[in-house]
Structure formats: C-alpha cells, structure tokens
C-alpha cells in the first residue's frame, strides 16, 4: 500500500467530477464530499512538505526526461493550500447558491477546474502544463457562462478565445525549447538552458501567452466582463484562483527555468505592466458602478502588484532579503486569493438580496446582511493592505526592499494604488452605514455567509498575524 498524495490531489477531484457527472441527482452531496477529500489531501501533502521538504513523484516510474512527474515544493504548496481552502469555501457556498438544474452543470465542471488547478501547481513538465492550462481555461469559461445571460456567454466566449491564443503562444515557446534542448521537464531544462536567441524567444512567447491568461494590463480587457457576469461562486474562483494560476506559472518559470536567461530590463517590462495594472485597474474600480465590476477591476490592480515584484526580485541579491521578498510575493498572492474570493462571495449575497449590484443603491441590502457587509469590509482591509492583513506585511517588505535598492518609483506606484484601493473600498462601505435597523441575527444563512466571512477573516487577520509558517514553508522549496 502506497499513498501518492501528489497524484491523489489531482485524481480525487477528477474522480469526483466523474461521479457527479454520472449521478447528477446527487451532485451536491457527492461534490461536497470530493471537495472535502481533495482539500484534506492537499492539506496533508502541504503539511508533509512543511515538515520534511519538497516531494516528487514520477508517474509510470520512468522519471524525467521521458516520463512526467509532479512535484510539491514550498511555493507550489503555498498556492495549493490557498486555492484548496478557497475552493472548499466556494464549494460550501455553491452548495446552496445554485438552483437544482444549475447545480447539475456546476459540480462536474467545478471539480474539473479544481483538478486542473491542483495539477497546475504541482506540474513540472512544460507540455503537461499546456494540457493543464487548457483544462483550466475550458472549465473556467464554461463555468463563467453558467449564469446563462447573453452578456455572460459573450464575455466568456471572448475569455475562451483569448485563453486559447495564450495557450497556443505558450505551446509555440515549449516547442522551441523542446527542439533545442530535447526535454520538457523544468528542472532538467534549467540545468542546460543558456542565454541565446532560442531561450529568449521561447521566454517571450511563453510569457506573453501567460500574460493573456493572467489578465496583465493592458491584456486585461477580457477579465472585467467575464468575471462580473459569472455566478458569484464562479467569479470568486476565477478572480481568486484562475488568474492567480497564470501568475504562479510566470513566477515558477521565472525562478526555476529562465533564471539564467533573464535580466533586469525584462523584469522592468513586467514591472511597468504591473504598475500600469495597479493604476488603471484601481482607477477603473473607483469609477465602476457595479459591485462585481469593481471587484473585477480590483483583481486587475492586485495582479499588478504581483508583477511589480519582478524588478524588485531581480534587483535584490540572493540571500535572506530576496527570500523574504519572495515570501512576501507569495503572501500577497495568497492574501488576495482569500480576500477576493470572500469579497465576491459576499457581493453575490448582496446581489441576490438586492436583485442588482449597483453600488449607489445597495445601502438597504447591505444593512439586511450585516455578515456579508462585514465580510466585504474585512476583505477590503486586505485589498487595501491595512494591517494586520497579509497584504500589509507583503507591501511592507516590498517597499522596504525597494527603498534599500533605491527603486523608489515602485514605492510611489504601490502607495498610489493603496490610496485608490482605500477610496474604492470605502466608497462601497460608506453605503452600509445608514440608520436602518440592523437585524439581531448577524448571520442569516450560515451556508453562504460563513464561507464568505471565513475567507475574508483569513485574509484580514490570520495570514498577516501568523505569517511565520509560510516563511518556513517557502524555505523548504524554491528558497532552500
């Protein structure tokens, strides 16, 4: 008897999808069961990595370069834990959000998306990543269109096509790397890759493909309509996890594969795009009239912060400072995952109660749902980067490093984004404080309100206050 947690982290949601497809009448119960099982697997796997360091499993026993393997190190496990907890909360929420017919469609696609996410965070093979990306893109687009409105279908068709363009470009880069080096395993490639036209072209192709999927400014144009029109639990997963997966891949390739190839200028290109995203996304969020559109633009802005990290990473010499910076980036991504998911779930409740999500008319609904409003507030704390959220710590470390390296202009961008974020969050919260009677029951519907509240709470308090384990975890992987 041998238990390969890496394989199970992908296989459980896959089997779950199979089972709920075959027996749609029990979709909710079986779906939730697979969700719990998958999350437990990922948590146990992460705990193992946290204690004993990274693990790798080669399927078929062939090993790289011939076979494919999965690998869990600190970086992948950090993202894995975040996405599985978020996904579990989304699952619980979705359990009572969807109608009976929508449920039949939601669960199998959702579990397929989940297995793609887990597979992506653990993957080590460039072509395998392509298949995983497609699985992710297809299931995400299908889920996004579940609300069935014309706007949602159109926006998600656009998303699907843009995603395909990104995958094809990525695949061209992979083909180039294979033709030169004859392998696909990231670890083996990293040992032989050398600066030169082949590696540069491959990197440019793969990164520009992934930028499309990560909705990096100015390639974000597909995101706001797609995320704002999807059903609330799907928006949460798309915004919190799916774009984050593309960023994770950029970071992973940056650190593990292209490290010998890249330089400060290319990092500056990434940083500039990130800065554009921070300012443009925040500004658009401030001007947004609908709550979910605001959240979607806020995602564009938050993705920008993550890309600002690249010039800082390049400027910082290897050592403790760089490790801290990297941990800060991961913490930022994790916090945003929790916060944005919590925000979208709560926004979905407000929308359901009010029948719309126009910000200026939400006062009454916000009053009727104190728990959801509170969740939006807590998630807002994390989105702005107020202490003690994880974003706050991450920004602190990023700004500190930027100042030490003399790169003060990134500080200006981060601060400007913070101010704008405060402006758009408090624009929403201001409507919640009028004098209508607050019901004594704080939580109206535990199944939907508690997941939102928990996610927001984790983002605002837990991640910042107990960030130390994350540092330990990251020491086990890419940093060690």
């Amino acid at each position: 008897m041998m238990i390969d947690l890496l394989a199970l982290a992908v296989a459980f949601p896959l089997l779950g999808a199979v089972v709920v497809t075959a027996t749609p009448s029990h979709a909710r119960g079986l779906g939730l069961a697979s969700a719990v099982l998958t999350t437990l697997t990922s948590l146990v796997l992460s705990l193992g990595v946290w204690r004993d360091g990274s693990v790798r499993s080669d399927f078929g026993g062939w090993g790289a370069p011939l076979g494919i393997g999965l690998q869990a190190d600190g970086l992948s496990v950090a993202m894995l834990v975040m996405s599985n907890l978020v996904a579990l909360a989304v699952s619980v929420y979705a359990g009572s959000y969807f109608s009976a017919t929508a449920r039949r469609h939601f669960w199998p696609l959702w579990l397929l998306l989940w297995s793609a996410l887990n597979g992506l965070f653990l993957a080590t093979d460039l072509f395998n990543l392509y298949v995983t990306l497609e699985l992710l893109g297809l299931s995400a687009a299908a889920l996004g269109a579940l609300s069935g409105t014309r706007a949602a279908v159109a926006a998600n068709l656009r998303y699907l096509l843009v995603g395909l363009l990104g995958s094809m470009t990525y695949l061209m880069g992979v083909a180039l790397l294979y033709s030169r080096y004859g392998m696909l395993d990231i670890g083996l490639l990293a040992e032989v890759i050398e600066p030169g036209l082949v590696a540069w072209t491959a990197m440019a192709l793969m990164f520009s493909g992934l930028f499309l999927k990560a909705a990096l400014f100015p390639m974000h144009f597909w995101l706001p309509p797609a995320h704002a029109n999807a059903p609330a639990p799907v928006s949460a997963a798309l915004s919190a996890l799916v774009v984050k997966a593309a960023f994770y891949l950029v970071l992973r390739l940056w650190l593990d594969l292209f490290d010998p190839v890249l330089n400060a200028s290319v990092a500056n290109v990434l940083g500039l795009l990130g800065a554009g995203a921070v300012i443009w996304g925040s500004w658009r969020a401030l001007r947004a009239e609908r709550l979910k559109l605001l959240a979607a633009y806020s995602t564009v802005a938050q993705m920008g912060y993550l890309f600002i990290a690249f010039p800082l990473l390049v400027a910082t010499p290897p050592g403790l400072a760089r490790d801290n910076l990297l941990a800060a980036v991961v913490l930022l991504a994790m916090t945003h995952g929790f916060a944005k998911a919590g925000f979208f779930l709560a926004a979905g409740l407000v929308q359901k109660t009010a029948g719309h999500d126009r910000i200026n008319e939400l006062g009454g609904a916000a009053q009727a749902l104190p728990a959801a409003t509170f969740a939006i507030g807590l998630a807002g704390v994390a989105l702005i980067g107020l202490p003690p959220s994880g974003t706050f710590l991450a920004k602190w470390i990023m700004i500190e490093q930027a100042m030490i390296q003399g790169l003060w202009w990134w500080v200006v961008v981060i601060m400007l984004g913070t101010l704008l974020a405060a402006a758009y969050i408090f624009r929403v919260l201001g409507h919640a404080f009028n004098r209508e009677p607050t019901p004594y029951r704080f939580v109206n519907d535990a199944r939907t309100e508690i997941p939102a509240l928990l996610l927001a709470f984790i983002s605002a308090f837990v991640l910042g206050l107990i960030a130390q384990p994350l540092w330990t975890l990251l020491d086990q992987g890419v940093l060690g």
Partner: protein
Amino acid sequence: MTPAWAKVLIPIVLIAIGAVLVWAFSLAALEGGDRLALIALERVPESGVSNPITSVLLNFRAYDTLLEVAVLLTALLGIWSLGPAAPAFQPASPILGGMIAWVVPLLILSTGYMLWAGGHAPGGAFQAGALLGAAGVTLALGGDASAGLPGETRLRFLSVLGVLVFTAVGVILMALGYGFLTYPEGYAKWLIIFIETAATLSIGVTLAAAYLGGEPRDERTSRSAT
C-alpha cells in the same frame, strides 16, 4: 472599429516576430540532436506495446493523456451546460438511409480495428474514438435526433468512462504499491488495452454528443423523439 494604422502595423510586427521565430527554430533544429528519440525508442519494448507513439501516449506520458481525456469531458460538460440541443435534421431519404445502414456498421468495425492496431502500428484510442464519433455524426445527419446515443443515464456513464477507468487504474495501481499509472511488468499491454477501450468508447460518445450539442434528455423523451 480598428484603427487603420493598427491594420498596417500588425503585419509588420508579426513579420518581425516571424523572422525571429524562423531564426530561433533554425538554431534550435541544428543544435537539437536526437532529443528524446533515443531514450524513448530504447524503452519501447518495456512499455507493453510496440508502437512507439502509443507507448508515449499511454505509458511514458500517460498522465498527459489522462488530462486530455478530461479536457474532452470538460468540453462536453460545457456544451451541455449551454442549454438544449438544436432541432434534429430531417429524416434521410431512402437512398441515404440505406447508405447509412451500411456505413455505420463499417465505421464501428473499423473502430475496433483501429483500437487493436494502435498497439503495433499507427492507430489507437483517439483515432478509433474519432471513427466511432463519426458513426454517431453520420446517424445524426441521417435524422436520428439522438445520433444513436443511449439515454441520459447511460450516456453520462459512457462519457465519463474513459476518465473513470484511466484514473481508477492509476489509483488502484498506486494502492497496490506500484505508483500512480505505473503498470506492473507483464500487465502493461492488457491494462493499456483496457484503458484504450474505455477511452475509445468515451471519445466516440463524447464527439457524437458534442456534435448534437445540448443537454442529454432523459430516456423517455429521447425515445419518443426518435
């Protein structure tokens, strides 16, 4: 509305990128050497099948193939989630109907052959599944609203069969101590055929169902429709 200058600029930029691509690929092809060919060909005898491509697909890189079957399932589920199917075609004329009656069994026969041939020659689950799907499409073109597919319960089961068998084999092998998708010596051939058979059925059913588009209707309504 596309600005005119963009229409001019896009080809120019693309040509530049193309030049770089050709150059990079030339460099890469010249320096590439044997790549994985030697390693892969050397290991083919251990893989349980003699066709190198099938060895790669179902043994060396079986995990890719598993995910690929999952992608196919995702597409089908996505199509189902978009609402009911388009109305059926008109029933075929007697001549076409007669031809369909000939072609469909032939297609199904070739499916079996393709599947079997994949072990040693070009062929395999996807080619076989495509033929099976073609049989369904042919039926649909002839006016069969269900494209020869079974009712909802069985249709759902058949469409997930590939992923189910693939994953289950993987997990069971893991539980037996061999590792996920690691075939024990001597069993590889039969396991691969088992998986391929399931995958062929799923792929065929999925392609036909995707051609119809729309959710599967439950059995009674679909029978009355045909």
